[in-house]
């Protein structure tokens, strides 16, 4: 188990290092004059040149990269070019906000989608099953900004039940903040729902068809007990892995949602950084998302390993 874990972590580190190279190359492709972007159209050329020299954007790329990597390893992501603040500080705040939104979405979607998947499996090939499957598929493939607009129109504008922006006023309590986050969470919930429900359904069907289920049923155990003790336990394993791998795509969805709902999360920060050619901020944001994704998948693999001995044995093969 330890060997498996170490190998998995090692691979994750390699991936992250490669990501840092890719991001560095990507962000340095950004065209244009960084100094001009920051100082704006009405600055003199001298002040622009001065700023470019100070930012070091005129040095060789390799020097800049090594500099950057050294900083990353010591927890220093540099300063945001457009906000003149440490990137870590800005990311910290934004991540906190995004985490709130993502958590709420997860808390809403996990029970709902697992329930949906379980019901679909138990009512396999009925109208109920097909409705859940088709609804789930449709919900998953409709972009967040499309469903986001629909929920804003219905709940914020027509019914006026909930606020149409995500940012609660400063100093709001937990429940007030949740109230502001419900609408933005819905598009994320919809996108995740179909995917998780589908995996749950497939896992349930496998488990229902498995020998141990048949044996347990033949032993005369009540159906309810069979499902709870044998089917669910085995069926939820792949679901856990899926939930963890969806963390990455969740952060992708956050970009559109945070813009639509004017929420200061990490997706919006990355979007702003891309627009302002704020290289340190952009690179930091993308790296952090990479770290979160890797951490989530390592965690998923571990959980899967703990819950399923077969994986542990096969891990070193």
């Amino acid at each position: 188990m330890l060997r498996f874990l170490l190998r998995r972590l090692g691979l994750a580190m390699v991936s992250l290092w490669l990501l840092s190279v890719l991001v560095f190359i990507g962000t340095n492709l950004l065209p244009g004059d960084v100094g001009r972007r920051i100082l704006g159209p009405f600055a003199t050329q001298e002040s622009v040149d001065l700023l470019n020299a100070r930012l070091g954007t005129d040095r060789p790329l390799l020097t800049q990269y090594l500099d950057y990597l050294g900083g990353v390893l010591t927890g220093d992501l540099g300063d945001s070019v457009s906000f003149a603040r440490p990137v870590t500080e800005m990311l910290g705040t934004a991540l906190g906000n995004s985490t709130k939104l993502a958590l709420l979405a997860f808390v809403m979607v996990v029970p709902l989608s697992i329930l949906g998947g379980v019901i679909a499996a138990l009512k396999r090939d009925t109208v109920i099953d097909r409705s859940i499957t088709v609804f789930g598929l449709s919900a998953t493939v409709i972009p967040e900004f499309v469903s986001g607009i629909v929920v804003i129109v219905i709940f914020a504008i027509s019914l006026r039940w909930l606020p149409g922006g995500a940012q609660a006023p400063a100093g709001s309590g937990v429940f007030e903040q949740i109230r502001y986050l419900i609408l933005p969470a819905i598009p994320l919930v919809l996108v995740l729902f179909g995917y998780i429900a589908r995996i749950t359904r497939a896992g349930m069907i496998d488990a229902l068809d498995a020998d141990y289920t048949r044996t347990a049923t033949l032993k005369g155990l009540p159906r309810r007990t069979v499902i709870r003790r044998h089917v669910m336990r085995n069926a939820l394993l792949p679901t856990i892995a899926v939930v963890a791998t969806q963390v990455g795509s969740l952060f992708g969805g956050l970009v559109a949602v945070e813009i639509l709902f004017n929420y200061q999360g990490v997706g919006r920060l990355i979007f702003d950084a891309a627009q302002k050619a704020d290289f340190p901020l952009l690179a930091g944001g993308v790296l952090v998302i990479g770290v979160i994704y890797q951490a989530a998948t390592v965690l998923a693999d571990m959980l899967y390993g703990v819950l399923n001995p077969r994986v542990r044995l096969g891990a070193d093969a």
Partner: protein
Amino acid sequence: MTTAGVSRSQRLSQLRGSATFWVGASITLTWIVFAIFGDFVTPYDPAGTPTDILDRLAPPSSEHLMGTDSLGRDVLSRLLAGARQVLIVAPAATSIGTVAGTAMGLVTGYFGGWIDEITSRILDAFLSIPLIITAMLVLAALGPTTVGVILVIGLVFTPIIARTVRASTLSEARLDYVTAARLRGEGPIHIMFIEILPNVMGPIVVEFTVRLGYAIFTTLALSFLGFGGDPSIPDWGQSISNHYVFLSGDVWWPTLFPALAIASLVVGVNLVADAIAQIFET
């Protein structure tokens, strides 16, 4: 080859019996028809005229069935014409990704070893950033053009498709016909593209249809985020991004209709993709 032929006709008949396939296919086909012939059926010129602006944001009426947009252009006309943009961009991007990904998957799966190990790591690094963020990163560099959108989506799809093709290639490479070909003295190129490729077409077709759905999703999301390129070209994502502000003032028509169009197209394409995937899986 004969066995493959039999299974193909079986699959087709299965497809014909799938209700969701027919629903999805007819929605998709409708939009394809509009994408091709849209110009002939739009009630007004989608590009509008300079004085249209005097009648901006007019609600739906008998004159403008879906109202007018912020430049006074006919929403229905732009909606019909807008199918073309996404139905050029998304399939083009998916094709690029599929061709490149297939080649990459065949090479890594067939050779294995360190080539495989290195590319797997790079792919893993690539895949740990959400598609839309990668696309934003690259488009910020290339500038928001239609060609840029096609290239970036194709680029991002390449490793994803490569991963699927690689897995199938790995298992095919162990089979007897590959060994036989090698003993015959065939080169790796011949083995990969002539021997193995036809036998991994199933997963590739499934990947293509599934990715097509994602490509539509991503294309529209990017144009919503302002990376769509020329704003005068009718585009559903851009229509929404330019008009969602007006929702709060009950001006819902320039936003809701494109949103419904997007929803119908992505659902349609994905129903087809899902039906195809199920047939290949069973």
